[in-house]
């Protein structure tokens, strides 16, 4: 066994992955169930090795604006929070999207609305994929279902953010944040050099040194025609992302009568429900969206072909189900099974719901 393989909590994995990617800075404010991200960063003390800044801000509002500032300089920066903290960050999210700066924002969701509970939830789906702040913008939204994906999606999130000059978001939940699993850690990458930033982020505000015209990062444009032009440019980028970046894992979908669509922890629990269903001779397949935006329309459509019905399994009162219906153009019966407010279903609950809502009705 090599020393890159270890056992880690999902939250700790996020922290280590950020250091190993060569992050320049983390700005955050503690909140359960993701406080281990900041704790692990403080423990690792990357400022003494890679030079990465780790700063506990005075609030989530401050943290997101520090990220906005760092990103505007072409730096590789991130923040992490949980649901109530993510609500506080929405103004900053909208500003960063309008300013076309690359950044990584992590939300390890807990039960809401309001301060709610500290236990797992997926009820910030709308907020993440439909735009929680004002204006027409989108976030590249990645949904990890394992501790390994917590590691991998930090790199993927930043790669996509820099590629499209967009904000990437990791939308996890308390289950994935709190559980420990085996992970393979990537090699330590060096932080981006000033030369790299000048070459790859010509828009960054990092001092022009008399070599180029002045760069301005702003979300304000009072000329309506120019602002419309900006919006068309944002939308063109979003269409490009929708075309290139849909990701979805399909499990047993080639020969199934029923399809479960679930992401994150719910995909894991549904997987077990699928195994239990197989023991009873019920053929179930799973489509696990990895990108929630762009929603993996093509994969879901393919997986749905020939099924009798679809069950959306969510820790929300039915948010992703709307995207499933849109993706499948309401050609199949789609029903919902959910638990709310921090409660998490066991595999048999999902199986029973599948039988009650689909198998017994549709045969």
């Amino acid at each position, binding site marked *: *066994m090599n020393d890159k*393989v*270890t*056992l880690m909590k999902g939250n700790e994995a996020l922290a280590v992955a950020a250091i190993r990617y060569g992050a320049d800075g983390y700005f955050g404010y503690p909140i*359960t*169930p993701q406080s281990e991200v900041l704790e692990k960063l403080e423990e690792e003390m990357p400022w003494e090795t890679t030079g990465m800044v780790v700063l506990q801000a005075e609030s989530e509002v401050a943290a997101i604006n520090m990220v906005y500032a760092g990103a505007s300089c072409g730096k590789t920066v991130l923040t992490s929070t949980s649901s109530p903290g993510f609500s506080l960050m929405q103004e900053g999210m909208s500003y960063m999207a309008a300013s076309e700066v690359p950044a990584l924002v992590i939300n390890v969701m807990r039960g809401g609305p309001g301060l709610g509970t*500290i*236990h797992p939830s997926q009820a910030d789906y709308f907020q993440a994929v439909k735009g929680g702040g004002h204006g027409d913008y989108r976030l590249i939204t990645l949904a990890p279902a394992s501790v390994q994906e917590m590691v991998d999606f930090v790199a993927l999130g930043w790669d996509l953010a820099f590629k499209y000059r967009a904000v990437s978001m990791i939308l996890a939940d*308390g*289950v994935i944040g*709190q*559980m*420990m*699993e*085996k992970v393979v850690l990537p090699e330590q990458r060096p932080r981006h050099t000033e030369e790299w930033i000048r070459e790859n982020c010509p828009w960054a505000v990092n001092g022009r040194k008399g070599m180029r015209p002045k760069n301005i990062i702003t979300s304000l444009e009072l000329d309506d025609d120019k602002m419309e032009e900006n919006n068309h440019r944002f939308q063109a980028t979003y269409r490009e992302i929708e075309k290139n970046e849909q990701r979805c894992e399909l499990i047993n979908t080639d020969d199934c009568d029923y399809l479960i669509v679930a992401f994150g*922890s719910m995909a*894991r*629990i*549904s*997987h*077990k*429900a*699928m*195994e239990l269903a197989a023991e009873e001779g019920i053929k179930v397949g799973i489509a696990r969206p990895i990108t929630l935006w762009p929603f993996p329309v093509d994969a879901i459509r393919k997986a749905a072909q020939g099924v009798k019905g679809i069950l959306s399994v969510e820790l929300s009162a039915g948010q992703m189900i709307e995207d499933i219906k849109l993706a499948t153009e309401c050609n199949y019966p789609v029903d919902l099974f959910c638990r709310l407010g921090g409660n*998490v*279903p*066991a*595999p*048999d*609950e999902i199986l029973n719901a599948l039988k009650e809502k689909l198998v017994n009705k549709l045969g």
Partner: protein
Amino acid sequence: MKEEIVIAGFGGQGVLSMGKILAYSGLMEDKEVTWMPSYGPEQRGGTANVTVIVSDERISSPILNMYDTAVVLNQQSLDKFEKMVKPGGVLIYDSYGINTPPTRTDIRIYRIAATEATIEINNSKAFNMIVLGAYLKVKPIVTIENVLKGLKKTLPERHWHLIPMNEEALKKGATLIKE
């Protein structure tokens, strides 16, 4: 091989760390492992439980409704988890403070006197290692050698001198299992 275990007791009994040591031991044997705690206020004195899954193959759900083995360390946990052991599965419980013993006949039940054993070896802190030793006697899913390796990985170097004491506790635990 796949073993789905729940360990449950009071916060402070070392439930979570026992699970963690087991998970690390699985890692040492190059198996897939998942450790899923109950988190929140129970860490500060209420009931705590942890699910540990050790498997040769990819692990699906970290949340389960039926377990191969339940290791329970108080009455509340026994009441909750006795019915969640798969038929033919294993239930191990510490006899201390148990007023209503388990009644199922379709599972293998082991009553161990782990609390008393801590007094015998004069080390109350080794409680969870005694229980782990008992568990591994019934279900030798990982070797004691790998448990000690896992322990070395979880403990900071300044505590490595405690490893022989833990080994003794594991061995003591194994003696508590009577067929």
